[in-house]
Each structure stands twice: as structure tokens, then as C-alpha cells.
């Protein structure tokens, strides 16, 4: 009710930056507490993430996953749904990719496999989002709880499938066989090097470009289509949505289908782009990190890309940091991630109310 007099930049920039700074500050205290120098640590971190082309590649590779899961969280969120099942949807999306690659890599060329894999990721991820969505829309169960449950169900399902059906004989690790190279997404450095551009050896692959395309797609979908209009109406005011004749159950279900599909694309990056075989636990918490990314990115694609790159940099820089200072474990990045969720999500009102109050008082006076 009070946004009237608060300048836009306060909400778009000042508050998010304050929140994130606070998260970093507290992380700095943690590093200090374990007897290391936070400034020095930050130096390694920044250098590792952005200091050389290979590092940048890794940063963007991590960011790719986070863009997908961040978009997934935000699409659902725009419809008033809290999808914390990104982890499971990404996992099952990867299954879709893996199955396509495993069944077609001997017979089909890349340009057939790639689009099918994209569809496979989306369909499988969406399917995993569908059930909780259906249950929420038609049977009134709470999506937060069901998506949590579905994360566990996905994880058990994948273990069962990979261990019992997809594992390559004679291999120790529960991995499928490695795909033929025509089912690999090309690395960006492979694409760039014939052009004489060296971007360093990194797992950064075509999925990154797809992630950017998805951002544009989501932006258009949410802010410029009828469906997006309905979604936002539902998300801000369910009663207005009913008044407007919006089929809320249908919108809910579609929102989760799209959300799940987007999360499923993590499988594209990980399975088809990097690991080239179906394996366990490749989602590695990206689904949860997507919540932080979406919160920090204010549920807007541009914000999400920025936040994803920031987190990607933390992952990559954090690995570099742990490499240089072995007493700092890469888990410090998980701590930072959690603090970002805390300060820009759970404690969002802490600064917001005060700062907005300040601007309102200034405007009133």
C-alpha cells in the first residue's frame, strides 16, 4: 500500500544489494571465525571466477544450471506457487535426456538428438511437476509439501532405474554407458576455437545459450502473453482471477509444467553437455539454489541471469578458494547461498520496511 512514493530503484537495486551484502558480510565473519582472511579469500574467489577465461567458463557453466532452476522457481512463483521440487524435476529431466541419448546415439545424428533431448528434458521435468500441480489444483494438497516429497521420490526412482536398468555392465559406479559423441552438446570452446577465439577449456556448452533463450522465452511469456497475464493475476489475487473467469486449476497446472520443464533442462547441461552419461545426483542441489537465485533476481529473467552468474561465480570461485586455502571448504559457498536466501527471502522485510518507511516519510514531509 505504500509503494506509492518509493522510487523504483530502491526496490529493484538498493534493497537486493543491501541484502546480498549482508549475506556476504556474515559469510566474511564465518571465514574470519575459522581463522582466515576474508579479504584474501574474496580475492581468490573473484580471481577464480572471473580472472581467467577458463574460470569464466566454469562460472557460466554453473550459472547455466542456476538459470534453469531460477527460472523454474520464478515461473511458479509468479503464479503464487512455491515450487521447491526443482531438484526432483531437474533429476527426472536428466532422465529424459539420458533416455533419448542412450536410445538414439547409435542411430541418429546430433541435429535429431538435440531437439529430442530438449523435448525429453522438458517433458520429463514437466511430468514431475505435473503430479504435485494436479494434486494442488484439483485435490487441494499443498504444493510445498508435495514437491518436497517428490524430491525424495525422484531420488529413489533414479537410484532404482540407474542401478537396476541403466547401469553399464561391468562398471563400478552406477552410471549408464557413455553416449556416443554425436549425442554430446558441443562445448562452447570447441565452437569458438575454429573462429580463432580461445575461451579456455571448460564444460561450458551449448546449454548456456539455451538457458539464455529460455530467459527471453520466460520474459515474453510472463509479461507479454495472455497466459502470463492470467498467471500473474492468479499469483497476485486468486479471487480476482476467479472473477476474471481464469481457469485457476489449469493455470496452476501449466505453471508447474513449465516450471518443471525449465528445471528439467539442468539435465541437458549436466547429462548431455558435461557428463555424457546418466549418473546419480548430478543435480547437486541446483534445485534449491534456484530458490536463492529467483529471490535474489526478483523473479525477473534479467535479475535471474545476474544472480545465477553471481552464484556460478561463487561455486567456481569457491572451488578455487578451497583449492588455494584448504582449510576453507567449498561448503562455505553453501553457507553463503543459505545466507542469501535468509536475508533476501525470509528477512526481506527487515530492511524493506525501514527503507520504504524512510522514503515515504521523506515524500510525505
Amino acid at each position, binding site marked *: 500500500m505504500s509503494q506509492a512514493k518509493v522510487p523504483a530503484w530502491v526496490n529493484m537495486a538498493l534493497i537486493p544489494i543491501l541484502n546480498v551484502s549482508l549475506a556476504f558480510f556474515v559469510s566474511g565473519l564465518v571465514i574470519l571465525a575459522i581463522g582466515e582472511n576474508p579479504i584474501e579469500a574474496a580475492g581468490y574467489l573473484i580471481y577464480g571466477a572471473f580472472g581467467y577465461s577458463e574460470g569464466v567458463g566454469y562460472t557460466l557453466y554453473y550459472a547455466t544450471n542456476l538459470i534453469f532452476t531460477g527460472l523454474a522457481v520464478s515461473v511458479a512463483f509468479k503464479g503464487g506457487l512455491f515450487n521447491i521440487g526443482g531438484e526432483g524435476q531437474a533429476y527426472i529431466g536428466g532422465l529424459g535426456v539420458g533416455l533419448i541419448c542412450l536410445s538414439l546415439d547409435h542411430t541418429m545424428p546430433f541435429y535429431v538428438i538435440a531437439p529430442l533431448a530438449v523435448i525429453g528434458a522438458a517433458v520429463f521435468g514437466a511430468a514431475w511437476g505435473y503430479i504435485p500441480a494436479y494434486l494442488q489444483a484439483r485435490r487441494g494438497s499443498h504444493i510445498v509439501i508435495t514437491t518436497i516429497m517428490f524430491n525424495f521420490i525422484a531420488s529413489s526412482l533414479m537410484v532404482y532405474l540407474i*542401478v537396476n536398468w541403466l547401469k553399464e555392465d561391468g562398471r563400478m559406479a552406477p552410471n549408464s554407458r557413455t553416449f556416443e559423441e554425436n549425442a554430446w552438446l558441443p562445448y562452447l570452446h570447441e565452437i569458438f576455437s575454429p573462429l580463432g577465439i580461445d575461451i579456455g577449456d*571448460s564444460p561450458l556448452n551449448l546449454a548456456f545459450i539455451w538457458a539464455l533463450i529460455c530467459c527471453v522465452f520466460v520474459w515474453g511469456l510472463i509479461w507479454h502473453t495472455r497466459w502470463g497475464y492470467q498467471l500473474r493475476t492468479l499469483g497476485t489475487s486468486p479471487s480476482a482471477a476467479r472473477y476474471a473467469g481464469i481457469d485457476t486449476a489449469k493455470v496452476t497446472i501449466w505453471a508447474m509444467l513449465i516450471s518443471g520443464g525449465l528445471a528439467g533442462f539442468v539435465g541437458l547441461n549436466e547429462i548431455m553437455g558435461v557428463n555424457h552419461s546418466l549418473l546419480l545426483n548430478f543435480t547437486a542441489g541446483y534445485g534449491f539454489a534456484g530458490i536463492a537465485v529467483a529471490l535474489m533476481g526478483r523473479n525477473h529473467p534479467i535479475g535471474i541471469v545476474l544472480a545465477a552468474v553471481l552464484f556460478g561465480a561463487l561455486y567456481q570461485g569457491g572451488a578455487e578458494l578451497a583449492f588455494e586455502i584448504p582449510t576453507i571448504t567449498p561448503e562455505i559457498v553453501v553457507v553463503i547461498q543459505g545466507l542469501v536466501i535468509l536475508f533476501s527471502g525470509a528477512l526481506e522485510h527487515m530492511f524493506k520496511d525501514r527503507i520504504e518507511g524512510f522514503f515515504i516519510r521523506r515524500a510525505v514531509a
Partner: protein
Amino acid sequence: ATEPAVVYDQAGKFDKSFNEGVYNGVKKYIADTGIKVREFEPKNEAQVEQGLRRLAKRGYSPIVTVGFNMTSAVEKVAKDFPDVQFTIIDGVIDLPNVQSVVFKEHEGSFLIGALASMASKTNTVGFVGGMDIPLIRKFGCGYEQGVKYASPSATILQNMTGSTGAAFNDPTKGSELAKSQFSKGADVVFAAAGGTGIGVYQAAKDEGKLAIGVDSNQNHIQPGTMLTSMVKRVDEAAYKTYKDAAAGTWEPGLVVLGLAEGGVDWAQDEHNVNLITEEMKTKVSDIRAKIISGDIKVHDYMSDNTCNY
């Protein structure tokens, strides 16, 4: 001078067993030579290759890599850095700059099996495996043969902890499995389960039964109730790689370490002296000699993926 390095697998160097064994070798090398060894613990799949690559690029060599999980990453990186020497433990890679070290776990397990059945009063012994993979079945199969050799009528209870990597790091399940085997009559349990074993040893301690450690000498973990450990000298393997490389005698190719080579063995120290009788000792020495001489043939599960001996 060489700049040695080591890359552990994702269980980390304090997994109380396999990685920790390598770590012990690394520590010893550092203590003996004063040369620093660069250590790296990757946290996810992508970091394995990234870490290897980074080490290779910075000129580290030899690089010891731990575990079969790393095979494909080492293969890739070794191809790109032909001048860097790699040693992979428990994996086989056929490249001119890679040494592959594997062990005859079945031989060591056979010895342990014989010891277990001799120590058992109930003529029932247990086996708790970690992740259900051929390598762990190889432990189990060798153990089974040893038990039967010493006491053909013995009962062997076998459980696997799980089918994912987490099965190597789940002491809670380990202790539950051990307890269930104890309650079914077992009084000696061999855990080939990495960190999961900690729970098994704890359970044995709590219930006054015996447990057998694995990979490194784990007798110290629960002194008095650890019958012995099936040591797999990964520490030696790592140590030797560094030594050889420094001396210029490091060679690529496949290295298979069995009883004869001292690559596997049973562990004896002050923590289990009271548990091993003279009689057991002589008998086990006898078996050991027979395996080395070939009089006893121990079936290797991984040769045909069955345990028919």
C-alpha cells in the same frame, strides 16, 4: 624435482578407509622427504576433471588419483597432458603416462574369512558390504571362501548397505545391519563399507562382538573388539609412486598387488594381540603361504561376476 599431487575421490580423505589409506601414504611421504604434496578434494563430478586439469597445467607430476570413479576424468586429462605422470588406484587406464594399480582384494579377504571363522564361537559370521558393486562383491566372495575353507559348515550372513555412493558413508545403516546380523547369531562381522564400517565397529563394540576393518588398518578404532583389518596397501601404492617418480623409476602400465606383493594382508598390532591366538596365527600363515604358492586358488568375483568357486 617433482611436484607431487593427489586427488581424492568425493568421499574425501577422511573417509576412515580407502582415501584415508592414500592420505596416510601421502603423510608418510611428506614426513620422510619434507616435500609438500598438493592435495585436492573435489566436491562434484565437474570438479574432478577441473582439479586434475588445473594440477596438470600447473606442472604437478606425478598425480595420484584415487578410486574407480575417477577413471574417465583421468583418461581425458592424461590424454591432454602426456608429460604428466598419473597413477590411478583401483582403476585401469591404458595410456603411456598412466600407471594403474589394482589389488587382489579376494586374497586378503580369504585370509580374513579364515580368521573370522576361527574366532567365531557361533560358527556364524557376517559381512557388511558398502555399495553393491562388483568390487565389494569381490571382497565378499573372497571372505566367503576363506570362511568355508576354515569351517565348511559355517553360516555367512551377507548384507549390502545400498546401491549408491552414499552406502559408503552411512554408519547408521552400518550399525543397524551389524545389529541385525548379531541378533541372527553372527559374532564376527567384516565390513567392507568405507565410512559405513564405523557404525559396524561401534555396534560390535556396544554388543561385545568382533568386527573386522578394511582398507587401512582400522584396529585402533575400537581396540579390543576389532579382530583385525583387511589392509589394502593403497598407502604403499601412493608412497611408491612418489618415490619412484622422484628416483626416475616410475613406470606406466598395470600393477597388480596381491598377497605375494604385500599389497593386501591382515593387520596385527597392539590393539588386537589379545584376540589372535597363536594357533590362529600359525594357521593363517599357513594359508597365506599356500595362496602365494598357488596351492589355494582364490576365485576372483570380478573375473566372471559370479562367486562360484
